[in-house]
């Protein structure tokens, strides 16, 4: 039994990979570009761990369940606590996306977004624009007035900084390059003519059009003026990927 523990550990990492794949949760942690590579790693773990466990089982058929633990085992267990903790958290807890509580740690950015280039092809209808399309347009627009009146339909979570008024929020997404560790918040500001009842981190779909207002610093800024805001379920792919 003791001999099979390292192989069992490898197998459990493989099972964790399979769990993420089957539940479509890999994108909660890493960019879609690395999914195949991650699956390769998880598959190797499943194969090596599986063969290893079976081999130890075959070699120790009669003694497998006769286990005696001593002080040395306790020491080994303590040494491997980080692995035990990781596997417990990974296998027993549900997969979570990042929460806006991390925003004191993550930069909130609209203009620092790395624009991939002129290769971006925009859909004909502005209501079909994705988050990335809008950020691209906002970064390259010649004047703010040029975007005024454009129709928008976008899904994101509600982010409200402590100093925002009750009728203002950002419809937001986390932008990920490689993995959640490098997540940066991107968002489009929404300004309603009445108090917005949605809570921080609630997922909403906002329909409306862009208009230019003066912000608190008396600078011109584009906001979405919503015609409809409705609560929606968290999407399967909650992040946007660069």
């Amino acid at each position: 039994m003791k001999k099979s523990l390292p192989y069992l550990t490898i197998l459990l990492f493989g099972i964790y990979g399979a769990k993420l794949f089957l539940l479509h949760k890999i994108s909660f942690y890493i960019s879609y570009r690395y999914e195949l590579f991650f699956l390769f790693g998880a598959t190797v773990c499943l194969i090596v761990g599986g063969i290893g466990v079976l081999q130890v089982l075959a070699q120790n058929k009669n003694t497998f369940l006769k286990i005696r633990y001593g002080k040395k085992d306790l020491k080994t267990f303590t040494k491997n606590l980080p692995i035990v903790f990781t596997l417990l958290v990974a296998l027993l807890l549900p997969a979570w996306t990042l929460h806006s509580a991390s925003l004191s740690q993550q930069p909130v950015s609209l203009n620092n977004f790395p624009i991939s280039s002129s290769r971006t092809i925009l859909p004909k209808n502005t209501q079909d624009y994705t988050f990335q399309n809008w950020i691209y347009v906002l970064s390259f627009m010649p004047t703010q007035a040029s975007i005024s009146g454009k129709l928008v339909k976008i899904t994101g979570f509600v982010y409200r900084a402590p100093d925002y008024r009750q009728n203002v929020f950002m419809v937001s997404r986390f932008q990920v390059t490689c993995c959640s560790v490098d997540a940066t918040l991107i968002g489009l500001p929404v300004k309603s003519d009445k108090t917005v009842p949605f809570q921080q981190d609630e997922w909403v779909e906002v329909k409306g059009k862009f208009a230019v207002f003066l912000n608190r610093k008396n600078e011109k800024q584009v906001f979405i003026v919503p015609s409809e805001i409705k609560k929606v379920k968290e999407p399967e792919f909650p992040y946007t990927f660069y």
Partner: protein
Amino acid sequence: VFNQLQNFITLFLSIVVESLPFVIVGILVSTLVALFVSEDRLVKLVPQNKFLSHVIISFLGILAPVCQCGNVPVARRLMLKGLSVSQATTFLLAAPIVNPLTVLTTWEAFKTNHSVAIIRLLAGVVIANGIGRYLSWQKNQERYLTKKFNDEVCNVTHTQKLKISYALELFQSEFIIIMRLLCLGAIFAAATQVFIPRTILLSFGQNPYLSIIAMLALGFIISLCSTVDAFFALSYVTTFTLGSLLTFLIFGPLVDIKMLFMMKSIFTTRFLIWVTIVIAVISIFIGVIFNYLRL
């Protein structure tokens, strides 16, 4: 508190999920080296000239373009196969930067200023060779290794078995050693991210000196993979000085929280502190010069 805890777990698992395939590739390479490369062949492959041997080893990352966490098991195996401490250190420090994936992604990310990619590559080669050569002049290089790993190196049995069970045994022992430290490093890196506000670091963005220190600290904390960190740095290009981003791109792949924990499977704490300080000083120096010359 629950939300913070939730973020901690997401970030922590994100580091593990991102690193796992790189570690697996590293362990597979390490196992293949153990099975198919004999000590004699390795010694023959490495030139006798010390300077030349370090230079060649610093380009080995081209053959196995994995990020830094995948290189730790390979470096361990190379030492078990007879490479000296200085040669293995050169490989470990060079491979994360001197590999085609890192060069390509940096080139692509900073396509408006290719000097970033060029200086990053040169800095990687120079730092790895400089530290490696310095170590090669030391008489007793083994004193930089942990007692446990040094015993392993001294007592290694040079047998060439090709049985599957032997390959499995090598794989599992390396996996447990590396994953134990990777998980511990990921716990620390995620905790630091959740509990130290990054906004403090980001407020130094345009100061030519403080921005460098801030990006150095950020690179150390977030423990990103070297093959993708250029795109992350790019998102700071309008708020931070270019020199500070270069410091981030040079220091981050060589030394970060996760990596230090993993390198602890080979080197003593004292040696790791020394290496961290040396690389930090050189990275800061390059960043300052870059900002000064406004390249």
